[in-house]
């Protein structure tokens, strides 16, 4: 572990057991699908078999008469939605499009698009009834590839859609290109003309899924007083509540969203699919209704991340990166809103490059509407940049990490959006990679190669609200509203323990429902340990202030003469006056009532994260299979609150990246039918596909957080695609520009070489 100017902490940096751990290893933790309410019935959803079709009519009469069926709903059962954009935490959504995605209105835009839903006494009965719903479709030509969709003669998903450009221009012709943005500085053409070397390449990546093991689920109870309670698996209960409120036109305060334990999300569980359907089915039947997806529905009916096409031209002079010109086109899926903007804004962040011109296109296609997936937009863009940089260094005969070090961004370097970086740890991360045991060891043997790549992610701040209620025995209930996907109950409790200098075990954190805590944005953007951590720190400071005031009252001294230190209250004027945290907690009733620390904030000062990865591979020339021999991920995390969970985030992100690089893809036939909507055919990495993932945690504290926290979770998925491609290029002499680099693709390419 590399450390830069690190203060001494007592709790931060230790590895305690998480508060929710025992429940999770004994099977007692309640996930969304585990909810069982009295009188509960089950829903199932009918989905479109076509990638693109007009719905002429839906006849639900036979289904409604099927024995055991209690209700059938279609889009007509949802209130009419406004054509307007709502900010919903991390993303902005068009309410009408969101509503049409929940249950299709006039058209289905992808195979798997929800069309109708049935509630029945058992899921099997509901399933039987689905077969009795008659939908009359007028099948339309479909377009599933981003470049095809951009052609002028492409089938249009929406005849009214025009291309919006930066500065508010709108195209006069209808198009599948929803938006075009540009980032530009310097003079790329002049820089290309005087460069030592120039590389120009085109890259493609396929649509891939987050692959969380727990399918989406929602259980809704519409009560007779008009209040609605929804139990669900989500990264953000308040985001679900906001979407329900918009779609159902129901006041926020009358909707309670109970966040159950969540079985993975990675960005995919920020938008709603089932929740509004469960709500209207419950309203119609007067019974609680549970909906769960099966795995094929998860693949076909939820939001994966974009397939992409990226063209890049990059130049170097005097051993530095001097110019980049790039065109990025991302598939948004059925409705606009891909992550292309973030791809464009992160792809050059590891470099201090003066001349660039980046064009970003958001394109609709007949596939599921994309959702966020871990550092959304960045991995595909980094695949292009980092592959091109690798080729530049090969042409120049320079060590790829030295080249990156020479061109590295640092504090003051401007990002492509013109904003200057605050203190960042890019150079420290590169130095740690250069000096790592992995990079210093040789790579030997036939068909083996080594690759490196860097990556960047912004990390988010946003809104958090917490309360810390001090109990009379000195224990503390920490009430927070951030979904705990991978140990944030622990990382938040640890920050409170540090702030108050009390033992970690005395703090009991609870993730509350939307009735019980102030607004919290989604657990996404690597924000929770940072932003909710900031709120926890502020709430802890609030407790300290209140305790100082109480002690001053007890001692009849001026509050300014009381200090809180090491979990004790002391009078600076009288050394005999001292109370421990618990002693004062015991006296709260006598000194003015409960002591409750609060903080609600909009966190600014999120610190961006850099990562550099090193990977060794062996490519089997007989089968085309790539084996990952060794992997080291180096990352600036700011401060590692709970190092084991930091390592875990890095390792998990790397392995998702390995899957994306080598195997994962949405495979389609020409009609727009997904061919591999099961875990068997959509092959995510198993224990056998990966080695141990070594991590080197660099700590360059974020000045925007009292403990220096940066976000951790997302950037680890950014470098692997390019790092592995670069390693395969080193091993085989062939540069792969299309993902995934599956055995078949590799074999075809190697055979072509001979």
């Amino acid at each position, binding site marked *: 572990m590399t450390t830069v100017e690190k203060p001494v902490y007592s709790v931060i940096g230790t590895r305690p057991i998480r508060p929710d751990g025992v429940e999770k*290893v004994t*099977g007692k933790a309640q996930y969304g699908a585990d909810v069982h309410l009295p009188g509960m019935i089950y829903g199932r959803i009918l989905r479109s078999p076509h990638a693109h079709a007009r719905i002429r009519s839906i006849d639900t009469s036979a289904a409604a008469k099927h024995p055991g069926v209690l209700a059938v709903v279609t889009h007509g059962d949802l209130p009419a939605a406004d054509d307007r954009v709502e900010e919903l935490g991390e993303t902005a959504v068009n309410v009408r499009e969101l509503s049409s995605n929940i249950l299709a209105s006039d058209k289905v835009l992808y195979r798997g698009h929800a069309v109708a839903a049935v509630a029945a006494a058992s899921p*099997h009965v509901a399933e039987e009834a689905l077969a009795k719903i008659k939908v009359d479709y007028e099948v339309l030509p479909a377009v599933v590839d981003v470049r095809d969709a951009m052609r002028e003669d492409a089938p249009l998903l929406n005849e009214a859609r025009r291309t919006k450009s930066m500065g508010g221009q709108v195209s006069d012709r209808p198009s599948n290109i929803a938006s075009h943005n540009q980032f530009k500085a310097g003079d790329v053409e002049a820089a290309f003309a005087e460069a030592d070397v120039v590389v120009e390449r085109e890259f493609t990546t396929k649509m891939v899924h987050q692959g*969380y093991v727990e399918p989406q689920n929602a259980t809704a109870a519409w009560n007779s007083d008009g209040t609605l309670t929804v139990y669900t698996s989500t990264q953000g209960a308040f985001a679900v509540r906001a979407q329900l409120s918009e779609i159902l036109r129901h006041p926020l305060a009358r909707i309670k969203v109970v966040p159950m334990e969540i079985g993975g999300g990675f960005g995919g569980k920020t938008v709603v699919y089932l929740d509004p359907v469960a709500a209207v089915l419950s309203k119609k039947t007067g019974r609680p209704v549970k909906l*769960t997806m099966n795995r094929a529905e998860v693949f076909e009916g939820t939001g994966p991340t974009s397939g992409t096409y990226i063209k890049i031209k990059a130049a170097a002079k005097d051993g530095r990166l001097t110019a980049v010109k790039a065109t990025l086109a991302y598939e948004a899926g059925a409705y606009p809103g891909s992550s292309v903007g973030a791809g464009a804004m992160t792809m050059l962040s590891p470099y201090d490059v003066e001349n660039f011109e980046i064009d970003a296109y958001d394109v609709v296609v007949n596939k599921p509407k994309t959702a966020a997936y871990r550092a959304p937009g960045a991995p595909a863009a980094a695949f292009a940049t980092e592959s091109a940089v690798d080729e530049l260094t090969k042409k120049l005969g320079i060590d790829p990490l030295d080249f990156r070090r020479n061109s590295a961004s640092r504090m003051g370097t401007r990002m492509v959006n013109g904003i200057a970086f605050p203190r960042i740890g890019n150079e420290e991360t590169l130095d740690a990679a250069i000096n790592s045991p992995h990079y210093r060891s040789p790579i030997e043997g036939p068909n083996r190669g080594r690759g490196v790549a860097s990556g960047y992610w912004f990390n988010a701040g946003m809104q958090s609200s917490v309360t810390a209620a001090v109990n009379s025995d000195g224990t503390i209930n920490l009430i927070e509203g951030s979904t705990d996907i991978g140990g944030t109950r622990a990382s938040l409790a640890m920050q409170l323990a540090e702030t108050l200098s009390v033992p970690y075990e005395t703090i009991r954190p609870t993730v509350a429902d939307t009735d019980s805590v102030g607004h919290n944005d989604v657990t996404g953007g690597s924000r929770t340990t940072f932003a909710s951590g900031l709120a926890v720190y502020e709430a802890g400071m609030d407790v300290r202030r209140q305790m100082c005031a109480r002690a001053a009252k007890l001692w009849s001294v001026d509050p300014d003469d009381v200090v809180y230190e090491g979990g004790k209250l002391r009078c600076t004027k009288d050394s005999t006056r001292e109370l421990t945290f618990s002693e004062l907690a015991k006296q709260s009733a006598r000194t003015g009532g409960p002591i409750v620390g609060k903080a609600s904030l909009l966190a600014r000062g999120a610190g961006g994260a850099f990562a550099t990865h090193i990977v060794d591979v062996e490519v089997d020339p007989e089968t085309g299979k790539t084996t990952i021999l060794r992997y080291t991920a180096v990352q600036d995390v700011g401060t590692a609150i709970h190092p084991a969970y930091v390592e875990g985030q890095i*390792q*998990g992100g790397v392995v998702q990246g390995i899957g994306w690089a080598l195997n994962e893809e949405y495979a389609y036939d020409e009609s727009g039918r997904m061919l591999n909507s099961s875990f068997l055919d959509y092959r995510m990495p198993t224990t056998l596909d990966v080695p141990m993932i070594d991590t080197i945690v660099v700590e360059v504290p974020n000045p925007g957080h009292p403990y220096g926290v940066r976000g951790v979770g997302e950037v680890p998925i950014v470098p692997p695609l390019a790092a592995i491609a670069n390693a395969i290029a080193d091993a085989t002499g062939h540069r792969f520009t299309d993902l995934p680099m599956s055995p078949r693709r590799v074999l075809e390419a190697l055979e072509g070489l001979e």
Partner: protein
Amino acid sequence: MRRSQVQTRLNGNDIDFLCEPRQSLLEVLRDELGFTGSKEGCNNGNCGACTVIMNGRIVNSCCVLAVETEGAEIQTIEGVAHGEKLHPLQQAFLEEAALQCGICTPGFIMSAKALLEREPNADEARIRHWLAGNLCRCTGYDKIVKAVLSAEPQLQEAKQS
């Protein structure tokens, strides 16, 4: 649909239940008996989240029909700890931070338990081979494999005492 009565042994207790022939063991465990510790990730045998031990062998309970369990001995995640005393594998998963979201954890613990009962000294390669039927999307497997390795000496100690 006509329901049949099934008698079986679940976590050491004799039980009986009624089920439809089309219901899987996983469905009966979760929806009829309230044992929701076994999880559903795919419902077709590809993720291992529903792993239980049946007659000493690990099975994907989503792929076993409930009626097939007549007379069987079934162990689920709920039967692994003894009261407040965790099984060494459960303790190791906690200490090694081998779970993030935790949805895969019951399945991994059941699979690993069956392995270590057969091969108490399984090495990394063997563990990776044995656990290849259990998907985890959060951890990258590193800490899971380490947790299983670290449980081995604890388990042997527990056996001896």
